């Protein structure tokens, strides 16, 4: 059985919010990675990866975050990650230094750029 994950995108002005719900592990990381790549248009300034509904992430999934940051970086687009303080994912994302390629915020409001 593959792990089960759903991606939902929402555009707010120049930011794309990508919500990942469910579980991402080695069995579905490639599929999820492809979907993430396809979801980002060239003309957004930044992507917010919303992980509040992500129940499980492993190192294969975390590699996707790094790969996405690299890809976006080449197009001068930014990446940030939303992980609530109480989320089990917090510590793992800190341990693996995700913050070095994408700032982590406890809520979507804090991750979005201020309204112009």
């Amino acid at each position, binding site marked *: 059985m593959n*792990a089960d994950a759903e991606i939902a995108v929402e555009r707010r002005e120049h930011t794309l919010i990508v919500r990942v719900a469910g579980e991402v592990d080695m*069995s579905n990381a490639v599929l999820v990675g492809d979907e993430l790549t396809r979801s980002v248009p060239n003309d957004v300034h930044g992507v917010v990866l919303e992980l509040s509904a992500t129940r499980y992430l492993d190192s294969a999934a975390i590699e996707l975050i790094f790969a996405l940051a690299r890809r976006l970086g080449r197009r001068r687009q930014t990446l940030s990650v939303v992980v609530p303080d109480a989320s089990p994912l917090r510590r*793992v994302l800190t341990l693996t230094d995700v913050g070095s390629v994408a700032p982590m915020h406890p809520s979507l409001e804090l991750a979005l750029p201020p309204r112009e």
Partner: protein
Amino acid sequence: MATALFMVLDRDTGDVEWISAGHPPPLVLAGGRAGFLEADGSVPIGASERPVFRLAHGHVPGSATLLLYTDGLVERRGEPLDALLEQLGTVAEGAREDLDLMCDDVLSESFSGADPADDVALLAVRLEPVEAGHLKMTLPAEPDALVSLRRRLERFLAPAVSDEVERYEIILTVSEAACNTIEHAYGPGDASFDVEARLESGELHASVRDFGSWRPRRDETHGRGLKIVDGLMDSVEVERGEAGTTVHLRRRLGRGRPAAA
């Protein structure tokens, strides 16, 4: 016309519910004695314009074996079904314990070496009681096995670890230890791996064991896997031998965070 049996078995309680459409009764082998789960007044599908099928209830005790089979197993010209069922019971009682071998024995004994007249399908199920605080499982070395491993670990940890964050961290590290095996599995020696876990005196002891030869991984994902395992466990030991590699993990429970390395 066809006979059919639909059965739902509750893995936690051993309770069964089933509906039979003229199908021969499932056999339950418990404590070395064979019995049958009978359902009243059922007719094969297609035999009646207004059939009535009744939901029946029963119970399969822990360690008992449930044997489902198609009627080819108990069809012999001129012999009444009751006598054949009794014979089946005797054969099942004398069969070997391992489920695959039991099926072989039931098939060979039922036909005394001759070929059956009709197709035969056998399904043997046994509920093994789980020892609280001890988990042992063998999994195929494939990415899909990770979901099964997580579900099993969730069930294992739930009674003893109330902190959701701690459960996730334990499940993640055991899974990361399994990932190396899964990534490099090829050939018959690498086809499966074992996971064992114990909860003892407020500590979790877990081990992941593969049976192939160890191959070093240098990519970044693996490096992160190591960071995760080192960061979330109190101790990590890797035992390498000719027969394979075992990773031993230990974590003190209930403190919120393991000691910094």
